[in-house]
């Protein structure tokens, strides 16, 4: 190893140490990159840092990040999720386990209207838990369904995580969206099948909704569905459809989607200045926390590569005397373990760039790899005891103990691992849709 390569490795080790202690990651990265770069490369490092920063700021695709986050907040503020849940509830009421189905379908549709997980678990907990409790549903399975459904937003398009991941692994965001759709729907299906089968085997877990909670008449059901479901479905269809068909860029679709969400909120009479203010402020903080980290890790990554240390890691990992598939499994296991202490922006922006050249050197399909990482990171949302979703759920549903919530989440985590294994064995789950979409059209 040359002096500079050694310097880069030292920078990496220090970075890991400092961020584990808990100082904000973005500032740590910037500091270490600038100082170590200065020592190793001289004053040119400042030009490099500025160039990298401006380059990232010109990445027009990232404009979709605040837009999809904003869209999600507007949809949430407008109470569209409650309407949606109400529609599913009245539609499915006589069915055993119908509330599980309602929760998971609502969460899936909501995931298609927002770029982040956000407050999905909280909102689902507030609106679904009381009726689940009244209807005698199993607390454990209910908590698991709410927590698992709530995390789908990080995987299902228009996921902000995928927008950020696209440039990191050199895959277009539209393709990543197309590839994530299959696994996302597979995941939701797994949840549904699991809860329904459990409810059919043991009706006590999820009885039909009591008569007095059902809609008065068939007409009322139709009305609820038309008012509560169709407009949102149309908005989502237009937003995602235009991206996938390549009619507009993800950025434009995000703007049109956000605009549509504002219009919908206004039509429902739920567009208030207070709500708009809250949405705008939250959007800024969330966007800034993700994208300022993107800037910092972009500078860090460029300097790490320039010092030559990135090459050392790639050579070491590709030189392992094991078949490529074992190396890939190792990388996936590392990401799974990193998902414990780190939130996805840190993993996608700091660690994936380190693994990327390794996976690329082994000639794996980056689209597939990106989807695997996305499913892997979604799993982290459900891993006790670090998963914050458990605490959010506990806060809004004090009747459920943390232990019950954890047990429920653990059951769904098993489903996640099943999905991950399926996706590794059958890459087509992710790849057929983008291939069909982009190669034949």
């Amino acid at each position, binding site marked *: 190893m040359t002096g500079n390569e050694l310097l880069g490795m030292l920078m990496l080790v220090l970075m890991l140490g400092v961020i584990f202690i808990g100082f904000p990651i973005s500032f*740590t990265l*910037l500091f270490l990159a600038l100082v170590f770069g200065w020592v190793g490369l001289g004053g040119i490092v400042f030009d490099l840092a500025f160039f990298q920063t401006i380059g990232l700021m010109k990445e027009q695709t990232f404009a979709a990040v605040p837009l999809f986050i904003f869209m999600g907040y507007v949809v949430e503020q407008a109470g569209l999720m409650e309407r949606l849940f109400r529609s599913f509830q009245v539609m499915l009421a006589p069915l055993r386990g119908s509330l599980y189905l309602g929760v998971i379908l609502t969460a899936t549709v909501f995931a298609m209207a927002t770029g982040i997980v956000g407050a999905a678990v909280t909102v689902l907990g507030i609106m679904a838990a009381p009726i689940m409790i009244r209807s005698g549903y199993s607390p454990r399975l209910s908590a698991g369904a709410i927590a698992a459904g709530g995390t789908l937003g990080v995987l299902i398009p228009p996921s902000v995580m995928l927008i950020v991941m696209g440039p990191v692994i050199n895959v277009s965001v539209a393709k990543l969206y197309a590839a994530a759709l299959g696994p996302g729907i597979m995941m939701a299906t797994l949840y549904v099948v699991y809860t329904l089968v459990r409810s059919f085997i043991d009706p006590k877990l999820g009885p039909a909704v009591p008569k007095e909670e059902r809609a008065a008449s068939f007409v009322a059901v139709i009305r609820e569905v038309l008012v509560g479901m169709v407009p949102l479905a149309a908005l989502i269809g237009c937003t995602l459809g235009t991206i996938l068909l390549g009619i507009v860029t993800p950025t434009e679709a995000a703007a049109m989607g956000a605009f549509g969400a504002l219009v919908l909120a206004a039509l429902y009479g739920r567009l208030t200045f207070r709500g708009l203010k809250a949405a705008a402020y939250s959007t800024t903080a969330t966007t800034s926390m993700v994208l300022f980290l993107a800037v910092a890790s972009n500078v860090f990554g460029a300097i790490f590569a320039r010092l030559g240390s990135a090459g050392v890691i790639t050579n070491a990992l590709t030189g392992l005397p094991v078949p490529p598939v074992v190396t890939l499994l190792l990388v996936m296991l590392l990401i799974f373990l990193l998902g414990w202490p780190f939130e996805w922006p840190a993993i996608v922006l700091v660690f994936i760039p380190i693994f990327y050249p390794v996976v690329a050197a082994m000639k794996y399909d980056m689209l597939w790899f990106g989807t695997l990482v996305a499913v892997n990171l979604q799993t982290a949302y459900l891993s006790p005891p670090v998963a914050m979703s458990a605490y959010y759920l506990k806060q809004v549903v004090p009747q459920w103990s943390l232990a019950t919530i954890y047990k429920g989440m653990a059951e769904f985590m098993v489903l996640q691992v099943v999905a991950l294994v399926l996706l590794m064995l059958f890459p087509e789950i992710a790849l057929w849709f983008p291939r069909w979409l982009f190669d034949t059209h």
Partner: protein
Amino acid sequence: MLPPRSEEDEPGMAQPSPALLRTIRIVDGFSDWSGKAVAWLILPLVFGLAYEGFSRYLFNAPTAWAFDVSYMLYSAIAMLGAHYTLMKGAHIRTDILWDKFTPRTKGRIDTVAYVAFFFPAMALLFYASVDEAWRAWQLNELSEQTAWRPVLWPFKAIVPATAALLMIQGVSELLKSLYAARTGRFIGQVEKIEL
């Protein structure tokens, strides 16, 4: 959000001095105000780009300005909101150990990190970018991205402005950390943002 969250005032526990509180309140107030002002840029971003989308695909009349406007507005929100995000305590920390630390330990770690890491990093970022922004202003540099060709200096000035704003809010954060290190109590609250 001020004054401090003192559960009960233990005797002998020093209250923060009025000067300290005033400084923190002024700096936080400034960051709150300026961050919220920046937040409203989301509306022109939504309307501008939605207009472009409709205009191009429905009426086949693309605008000259949408591309430049989109990256300029988004990066303004992301960068010029960073100090507001810092005030909210929302920049990502690894909380696996952090959550177990006492307020005093947190204060000590942050004090060291702000002095040793944060301020030098922001000063270097400012140094790395201020000349470029200045040159763009002097040369009246124009964007090469589109036919609209807007001036580039406001866009390039975002970088040094971000560093400067972060340093301003950093003063307040450093004072809060020092106070927590000394007394084991926090001034203000941090928000955990759900991603």
